[in-house]
């Protein structure tokens, strides 16, 4: 589904990604763990098409297509979804209008008819209940006045509603209390199937207690330095980055 090869990228004058290789197949869950400032969010941004990141080397293929030929909206229309670490607040755009516009543009790009009002209402309601979001949630402006936890739940809500193929969640667990974390994990387990894939960027093992990754990657200084199974996350939690890094060196 996703094939990243020798990816190098800069933000301004600074090289952030220094040769990333990563392959993600349908049905897989990948966890990327790494210290602050190692470039995890930049990698997520490159996949989603964030404009201020310049790729200087390497390639990314998504379902066999060169991702660099696609704008951010085209990537989303083809099924890539980024759950933001810091979701933006958009005063004056209601969640309902935002999601309706989003769904219809994705459908249009995929030559599907636009969603009827009844189907939209049912879809939004069904997914809202999974995350126990309040009934007035859809009337509120996007992320405006939301608590940190609500913002993160909103990212997951959008994911459930838009039903993408490849999901990258950038520190979705930060700012969530234990109950909210369980809800988010439950939602991810409902969402996960053989036709989609998840990349979870996280600092902590705790999310991985609820959703089991097929692969855990340690990301340091702009590249993946070690890949293992779910036990690697436990080892990391126990020993910390320094000890694992010195063992590699």
């Amino acid at each position, binding site marked *: 589904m996703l094939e990243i090869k020798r990816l190098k990228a800069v933000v301004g004058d600074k090289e952030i990604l220094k040769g990333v290789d990563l392959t993600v197949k349908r049905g897989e869950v990948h966890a990327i763990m790494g210290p602050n400032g190692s470039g995890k969010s930049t990698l997520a941004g490159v996949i*989603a*098409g*964030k*404009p201020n990141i310049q790729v200087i080397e390497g390639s990314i293929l998504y379902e066999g297509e060169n991702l660099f030929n696609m*704008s*951010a*909206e085209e*990537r*989303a*229309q083809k099924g890539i*979804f*980024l759950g*933001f670490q810091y*979701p*933006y607040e*958009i*005063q*004056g*755009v209601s969640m309902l*209008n*935002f999601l309706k*516009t*989003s769904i219809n*543009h*994705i459908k249009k*790009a995929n030559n599907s008819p636009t969603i009827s009002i009844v189907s939209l209402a049912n879809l939004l309601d069904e997914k809202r209940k999974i995350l126990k979001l309040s009934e007035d949630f859809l009337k509120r*402006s*996007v992320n405006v006045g939301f608590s940190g936890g609500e913002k993160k739940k909103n990212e997951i809500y*959008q994911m459930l509603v*838009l039903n993408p193929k490849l999901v990258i969640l950038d520190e979705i667990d930060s700012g969530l209390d234990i109950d909210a974390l369980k809800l988010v994990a439950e939602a991810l387990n409902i969402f996960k199937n053989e036709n989609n894939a998840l990349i979870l960027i996280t600092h902590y093992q705790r999310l991985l207690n609820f959703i089991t990754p097929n692969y855990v990657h340690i990301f340091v200084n702009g590249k993946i330095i070690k890949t293992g199974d779910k036990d690697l996350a436990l080892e990391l939690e126990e020993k910390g980055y320094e000890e694992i890094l010195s063992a590699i060196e």
Partner: protein
Amino acid sequence: MANLNVIKDLLKQQAKKNILTNFLDYKYYNCAFLDYSYLVKNDFEEKKAHKYLNFLDNKCKVIAEKKYQIKIDSIFKCDIPSISPQIFFFLNSEFYNEVDNVDYLNSLNYVYKLKSIKEILAYDHYFKDLEEKNFFNKVVNVLFHNAYKVLINNDTNKIREPIQLVNLFYYEEPLHTYSKFIIEISEGTNVSIIFCAHTLNSNKYIVGLSLDIILKPNSKLYLYQMSNINDSSLYFINNNIYQEKNSEVNIFSTAINSATFFNTMNVYVKGENAITNLYGLWHSVKDQDVNYYTSVKHMASYTISNQLFKGIMDGKATGLYKGLILIEKNLKEVEAKQKNQNLLLSKESKIISLPFLRTYSDKVKCFHGSATGYIDQEALFYLCSRGIPKKEACFLLTEAFANEIINEIKISSLKEFLANLISKKLRGELQNCFKCEDCVSNL
């Protein structure tokens, strides 16, 4: 710019006519034309004067000589359905009372033509220092050829619906037209007024209107001002508002289809516990020029004012916001807010924002600010990352910017109409003066 002598002659001619028809006080006549600089002497008013003089030429008629015997319905249809059961039409500033289904005598609201300067001067004392400060006030005071009184009576036994004052402009030649409305809101009355101005063909018009509004104690006014003025024309409107105790005024001015537009709001908050809310929203494109001038003068304690003006500018559009909060001496518990925000959709568009605050009392709470910028790129990426095309995402963010003001509108059909109008204009689905061809063929 037009030749000054030509303009002087033109204005003098009109002023003479106004003297003869009892419409001009000699004090205006003398100071305006013996000393021409009277009109343009104030530095802050220079832009207005310059713009006005640029629009003038000797081909413009000052008073429409031809009176059209036409049914309003055949040239104009209001775009907002069921907005008001009481509509008063003015064609080229003449009161057009040949409208069916309006029973003026049994109405809660009376609109009638004022016949002499004496009647008009009866309200002059409310706004006595204005003529020295406002260029367009001076122009209307010298040149107006029609004046109307709008009296909103208090009758708590009847349900009060919004009233609509529709100013239509249709002429076969270029035309100046200046008129004055004196609006008196009786004690304890709560009313909504929709005040519109439409040009109905592509001729050049100079439309000057003054609204002198007096709010009696415990009265409340929602005034919605809308315009659809063609690209060749200049439209200016002066709002002079006098508030007595416990009164509340809410003005919503929009300039979505106005090529060269000046709106001035001077508010005298004279009575205690009075509340003033001023809102302005404009969207200008091409080389359109929209200008808002506000002045809220707090003259009593326990008064609250709030000003919010938002401009959206595209193409080579220019804009100006100059706002003033003035708090007089020895007042207490005054709260005054003033905010101007502008969204530039092109690199060539320009805005001048001048928020001013002058307070001569200590026990007051004031806030004023101004912010101008382009579309927020991070918000744009957020929307695009959900599959929304960049252009559509820009529209959504622009609509969201306007919504802060639209959401304050209390009439739901008007709110819906304005949101739709902005949405259509952003998407290029609306031409300025889009009805011209239809109207011309109907005449």
